[in-house]
């Protein structure tokens, strides 16, 4: 009888059902998984792995797509497809590094500010967040990058600096309302410490929106990273960053369209994948409407 009504542990079948309710979220999951696999195994999967770095092959330069170079070659004769596959590495690395810096910081600040709502901590944290939010994100990132030496690392730091307030705002709004829930008061009168209340009572109830935002944000972080590279403030040649590739190829438009178009489509693919995945994750945490 035990377990007939009361199940133990999460029900993965049901979660999958909710996630896959919209088949596009499965597409998103597939795209993200494919991109991740390509990024990880790029040196083995790319047709010309050496073309990712310093490499010159002028006799094959400016070749349109053909059976040897499916996406054509750029002005140095490098295979565009190989470079895109390596480009995924930098895109995903951007998302992973930025989000793993931003999410813990933003979430903790939001939780603490929400818990001490109306106090000095709330005031200081949230007004700082407001200041960062008041400047258009790309402008802020551009100005930080232009002060520092352009590099992948500095681009990541710049994007991180402008991104944390979004998590702080999101978590603040949830935690400041959960703060007054009866179960939080029940924990208080049972003698729970503020630490316990913040991390054991409030945080677990914020996880759904946080995870949804992470998946949706991954695409946007990649886009901002590519934008910085496009204007020359992010990854520097010969690093095969998708943004850099689009910007390099732009010099040869419109005759040699393939040099820019395929990296641009790759960016579209990644962002689309993360957005569709994010929709699925949101459905996963949405309240059940039976």
């Amino acid at each position, binding site marked *: 009888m035990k377990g007939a009504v009361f199940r133990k542990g999460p029900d993965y079948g049901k979660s999958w059902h909710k996630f896959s309710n919209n088949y596009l979220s499965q597409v998103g999951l597939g795209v993200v998984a494919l991109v991740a696999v390509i990024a990880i195994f790029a040196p083995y999967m790319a047709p010309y792995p050496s073309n990712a770095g310093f490499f010159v092959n002028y006799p094959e330069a400016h070749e349109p797509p053909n059976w040897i170079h499916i996406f054509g070659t750029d002005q140095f004769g490098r295979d565009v497809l190989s470079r895109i596959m390596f480009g995924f590495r930098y895109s995903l690395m951007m998302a992973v590094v930025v989000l793993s810096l931003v999410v813990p910081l933003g979430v903790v600040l939001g939780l603490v500010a929400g818990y001490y709502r109306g106090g000095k901590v709330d005031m200081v944290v949230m007004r700082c967040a407001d200041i960062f939010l008041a400047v258009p994100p790309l402008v802020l990132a551009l100005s930080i990058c232009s002060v520092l030496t352009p590099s992948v690392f500095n681009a990541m730091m710049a994007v991180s600096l402008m991104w944390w307030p979004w998590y702080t705002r999101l978590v603040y709004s949830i935690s400041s309302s959960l703060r*007054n829930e009866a*179960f939080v*008061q*029940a924990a208080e009168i*049972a*003698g*729970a*410490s503020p630490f*316990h209340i913040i991390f054991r009572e409030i945080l*677990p109830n914020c996880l759904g929106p946080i995870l949804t935002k992470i998946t949706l944000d991954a695409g946007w972080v990649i886009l901002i990273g590519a934008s910085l590279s496009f204007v020359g403030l992010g990854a520097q040649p010969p690093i095969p960053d998708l943004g850099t590739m689009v910007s390099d190829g732009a010099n040869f438009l419109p005759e040699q369209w393939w040099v820019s178009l395929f990296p641009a489509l790759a960016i579209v693919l990644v962002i689309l994948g993360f957005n569709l995945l994010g929709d699925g994750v949101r459905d996963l945490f949405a309240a059940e409407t039976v």
Partner: protein
Amino acid sequence: MAEQLLDVKDLHVYFKVYEGLLKVLNGVFLNVGAKEKVGIIGESGCGKTTTMKAIMRILAANAIVAGGTIAYRGSDVLQVGMQDLMRLRRTSMSMIFQDPTAALNPVFKVGEQLEDIVRYSEFISHTPTKQEVRTKAVDLLKSAALPEPERILDSYPFQLSGGMRQRVCIAMSLASAKDLLIADEPGTSLDVTIEDQIMRELKQIVEDRGLSVILISHSIGAVKGFVTKLYVMYAGTMVEEAPTDELFSNPVHPYTQNLLKAVPKLTGGGVPEGIAGRIPSYLTIGDGCRFASRCMSAKESCQAHAPPAFDIGNGHRVACFHYGDI
């Protein structure tokens, strides 16, 4: 007179809101002896829960304790430091909320929540093993009359019925209430048969454990069989205090008299009388007797200043200038 446990004197709690200052509690007094069962009745919004939150010190951030003392075993709860307060909450007093659904964290199993409390409340001297905690949690659920405690511990709150949830809440508060249990309308959100069951069980539990209880209710029937002393609250003031039997046989304050007349009776006698008017706004409330605007026997003098609590013998106190003539 039994040993004193809780003594609230002249408590004033105000709330700062956009429109101004809400003067909610105005000179509340409350006296609970060791192992005494005390009830507080009054209509919704009269400050019963606010008083209890003040005792537990979980008032909202915009609350201002403008005056008064809450002596708990001789020390003022309003003055103790955070560490002492946490120890007090863990080991001495606890509260059962009106709505058990809201009082349980939805994302954790009952066992995880209950065991957390047990770990900090029941084992002061040593760090308990998992097995010790589990056994204690099972015991607590059993004492709250829950069948199959092992299964309940492995369930999420949403998998339980309302009555089961309230019993879980009772079990949780029993872990940390070694002296005082505050029950804030524990049956209100349940259906009447379950409410009756819960109240009987709760009475049994507190008697077995020798706890002091403050039972809050707006249903006179629910408290009558439970408590030995009753307080009647109106608009943030205590209007009458008396032993239960005395209060029912000899209500003195006009509000209490009207409140008792408003109870529907099984023996007929037509529709019970209501009390005309409503609780005055806490924002614009004056200094006079707070019941004066609804009182049939109010005089000019009632508006001037608030009546103190007059002792009229037999442990009966009443806050009315004209208690003799009514």
